[in-house]
């Protein structure tokens, strides 16, 4: 986690809530089935309704769309509410998709590195 994002996009895949840095998101669009640029199945889980697509700029790889069930909104999160990945967890996770945690309530919400997620995941 290089910098603490203050603006987080909150979204849902299946029954789990995730958040991501707004800066990583180019736009929210409809889901287009098929196509190389669409990531339907990711480690976040299998979306059920597939109602939204989070379009991510992957640099040279171009735009990739992460299919999600619902985009709940954008929330400004203070830096104090952000937590790094614990050392043991970081040692066990190698995909780099978990950037940290945001304390949106009592429970920690996974802060997803969208570029790492859609850039490194096959459709």
């Amino acid at each position, binding site marked *: 986690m290089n910098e603490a994002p203050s603006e987080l996009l909150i979204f849902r895949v299946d029954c*789990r809530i995730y958040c991501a840095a707004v800066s990583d998101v180019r736009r929210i669009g409809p889901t287009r089935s098929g196509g190389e640029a669409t990531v339907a199945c*990711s*480690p*976040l*889980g299998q979306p059920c309704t597939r109602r939204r697509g989070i379009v991510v700029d992957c640099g040279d790889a171009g735009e990739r769309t992460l299919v999600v069930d619902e985009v709940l909104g954008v929330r400004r999160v203070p830096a104090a509410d952000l*937590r*790094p*990945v*614990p*050392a*043991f*967890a970081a*040692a*066990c*996770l*190698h*995909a780099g*998709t*978990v950037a940290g*945690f945001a*304390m949106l309530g*009592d*429970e*920690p*919400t*996974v802060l*997803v590195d969208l570029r790492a*997620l859609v850039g490194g995941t096959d459709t």
Partner: protein
Amino acid sequence: MRTWAPCPLDAARAILRGMESSEGVAGAPGVVSEPVRDGGADTCLFGLRILGGRYAFAASLVTEVVRLGPITRLPAAPSFLRGVFTHRGEVVPVLDIASLVGKAPVVTGPSTRTAIVRSGPWHLAIVADAVDGLVDIVNLEPPLADGGGISAFLAAVGRDSLGSIAVIDLPRLIEAARKRSVPA
């Protein structure tokens, strides 16, 4: 700090004192185990119940016993890493020994207890079916031949007032878990 024992039992005693195991945490960055105080620590083991049996490890590793709060699952995590939960504002990863040794995971609920341990650089929670707390073990003996599973991580076996109990080399187990996660 290393204390090599000339016999397995000595090694076990060393483990009981919270010494680093043979595989140690040499690779862990910038964290050094606290020195283990001598005197009466031979019997200071922390007991818990997993895999249908009673197990123990050095009580000095345990920082606290708490109720396991709601777990946040981690994407692309190995099965033994059940997720994270917050404790005193800190995000703590949860390790399931049963899953690690290929058995059915521990069933967790609102009253499930977990022992937060600090082993070398790692700060994590060990989830168990139940927590016995401090146990007094006598007649420590070397474990039986390595039969795979949990026995690969045993340092000794002994008895207390409730019956037999197996002593786990927890740092070795944690290290083994970490290593297992590293992609080939």
